[in-house]
């Protein structure tokens, strides 16, 4: 499955990137293809393009704050979770997608 994700946390220096790493690792373990955009203190990195989003079956928002460019995801199935879920319960998020 092709998945896109966005991570963002209040200070943007640690959890944004930890969540991104967990999502990437777990997706790989489960055989999914994922691209994670981080919105942290470094700004937007690994930005999702229009075609990335169009091709994705689902978008995961692991965020504690409002994110930039939310309107890009119109019409995409969005699963939004508190960021810490992406760190502690990563597999559960993917189970929700499959279920």
């Amino acid at each position, binding site marked *: 499955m092709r998945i896109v994700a966005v991570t963002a946390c209040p200070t943007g220096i640690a959890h*944004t990137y930890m969540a991104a790493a967990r999502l990437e690792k777990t997706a790989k373990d489960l055989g999914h293809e994922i691209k994670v955009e981080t919105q942290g203190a*470094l700004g937007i990195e690994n930005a999702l393009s229009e075609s990335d989003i169009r091709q994705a079956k689902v978008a995961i928002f692991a965020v504690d704050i409002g994110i930039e460019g939310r309107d890009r995801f119109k019409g995409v199935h969005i699963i939004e979770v508190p960021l810490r879920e992406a760190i*502690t319960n990563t597999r559960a998020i993917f189970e929700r997608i499959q279920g």
Partner: protein
Amino acid sequence: MTQSARMAPEFTFVCPLPNGFHARPASHLANVANDFISESVLTNLRNGSVANIKSVLSIIAADIRWNDECSVRVHGSDEQVASSALRRFVGKDLPAFDEPLTNVLPDPTTGRLPRSLRSAGLKAYFGLPVSRGIARGRAVVLRTIEIQSEPLGRNGLEPIRESERVKQSVAATLSRIRGKLQGHVSGIEAGILQAHLAILGDVSFMNKLLERVEQGHSAARAVMDAGEFFSDLLRKSENPYTRERALDIQDICLELLEDVQGPRSSSSVELKEPSTIIAENLTPQQLLALDRKWISALVLESAGTTSHTVILARSLGIPTLVGAKNIGELAPGQDVLVDANRGFLLPESTDVVRRFYEREAKTLERRRAALASYAMRPAVTSDGRVLEVAANVSSAEELTTVFQNGADGIGLFRTEMLFLGREAAPSEEEQFQVYVEAVRAANGKPLILRTIDVGGDKPLPYLNLPQERNPFLGYRGVRMYPEHQELPEAQLRAILRASAFGAIQLMVPMVSAVDEILWIKARIAQVQEDLSSRSISFDRSMRVGMMIEVPSVAFILDQLGRELDFFSIGTNDLSQYFLAVDRDNSRVAGLSNAKHPGFLSFLRQIVAGVHKHRKWIGMCGDMAADLRNLPLLVGLGLDEISVPATEIPIVKERIARLTVPDCQKLLFEATRCQSVSAVESFLDRESNEASRSLLDRELVLLDGEIDSKEEAIRDIVDALYVQGRTDEPDRLEEAIWTRESIYSTGLGHGFAIPHCKTEVVNASSIGILKLPRPIDWGALDGEPVEFVILLAAREPDSNGAHLRVFSKLARSLMNEEFREQLLEAQDREAVLSQLNQQFEGTG
């Protein structure tokens, strides 16, 4: 009202001073009145108070506020001239006495404990710290001496006998104070005694005393009544400084009382162990009567910050809090801790408090030791350029501490402090003693004595200097020397005689033309000749220099460089003259900023102009005291900077991390900025401190005695403080906990990653703490934590390369293998090498 009083000249005026008629304008008005025989009476038409204009106390007591209408009546043989002189003073000179409003002090009762103490739920009494330090001691609660509570003596006595007793005790007290002044007293104590002399000599004070005895009261009763009367009036003043003079009145009255009644038996408290003195208020003499050896701290309920008691406590190095509420409820004998670095008293010593302050003592000691390693050596940039770091002082007493702080010399000794606040100028001999004491304390290090710098803004009663509209552009510094020759002459003699004892250099203030230097040099030559003829020794090669304060001199440095040995830039005056800004005018004060790009170019030109003549140039203004300016000063190529003594160690530490070419480049870029704010943000962005590496050996902590999350965070914060990466550990701790309150940074698997973005770190930093025993962190997986990685990102720059390292590190922590390697690392090197492997290829 008599016939003549009705005919006497009378006029009215409206008080133009937003801060009211406080001590300084009052003493000037009294000086004007005292030049005449006529009696002058002022009536404050708002409250009906009547004041004798010859008495400072009386004027202050009339509580004249802004816009109060007052009438003045003059009566006597020279009433016409006296009246017009007074009229001229209130009309023309008085408005110039406006002072900026006293800063509103923070309300101490809203203070906070450091985060790691706050969670322990302790009771604390907050106060405003006015003299720093941390001390423990038993509470000694002193009752306020109420003058009324003293035995009164009989009434209905013979007025003549009682008035003799009053006069005798005033005379005896005066001579006792004068006697003390001749003995060994510190400059601070001397200032207090001088103020007491002024009160005893005040005509209203004496009149009040005599008035009471004439009414049939005893001498003792008269003293009590006068004391109560004047301290009451002073306490009602709107001006805080004036209010605090009430203590001095009480002090004097207590002394007079002892004289008329004999010593009070209960007056002194004997201290036998380290004691924290707790009182509503204390007079200076009461404080001096206590055994300094046992005073560990002083906590006052009264909020005054400028009382003589506070000034004295500071000079004695006693940790002191003022404005502390409800301290009367503390039990005598109770063990209390006073933290006068932060501003609170803790009445109970719990385990948490004990551990906190033990850690704190170690931290402060480690920071002191880290700084001392720089302080006691010359300041050298990392590419080897030496910059002298000297201190500014105002009295010889400060010198010992100054040199303990690592001063390479004294860049500015303000001698005018010897001349201010007294009845007559200090004699040549008195000055000589002070200068010799100073040069001995300097012990071979250079000592720059600035000759007397007074004028309209710092008036001397015995010089009769005219009031000026604009004293900063007026008759001051070297400009008044020729007319008052006796003053510079006595000073030059004293300085030259003292030059035989060490490396004294003489510096002339407020020079705007070469003539002034030629005049001084001629006087010096004369004094030298005279000293030689009397076989009095002096240093013939004593260096002579000048302050650069007036912009004109920057364009005649060729001429001046031929006449002088050295120069020192006084940035406060130079910038205000250069930028045409009156620093005391709040509407334009913001424009006065030494970081103006034009001013920076000007400084560059001055330093180059002086160095062309191979002469030495230093800087002694506020610009040198601001750490953020250091790279600019190094870039300027100054030979010396003179700063407040406490700043010396940190200035030397910061210099050691700078290089000359970087600083020169930075200065050049700064001179090309658009504005002051552009220079400031440029300096912030390019801060050399911020470019320190994220992590160093000293930030890897492997053997802490840590019991809690609070202690763990504090331990890393303290390590950052010891390394000079933050100057405000409490605020850094607070920032970390603010992030922690969103949700725990315990990320699971025994790891925690507390972090924050903050302006209170000088450099983005990583701190590592490996715990000997796992502790609860409220982690996401509920497991205890044994490895803590603290990330502190500096705002505003938030260096991209540093942030990339943080993000890389955060990602790596999701990797089990990496976590295990960190847990297995046994020493600092192993931890560092694991981390550095992760950072490779980043920033």
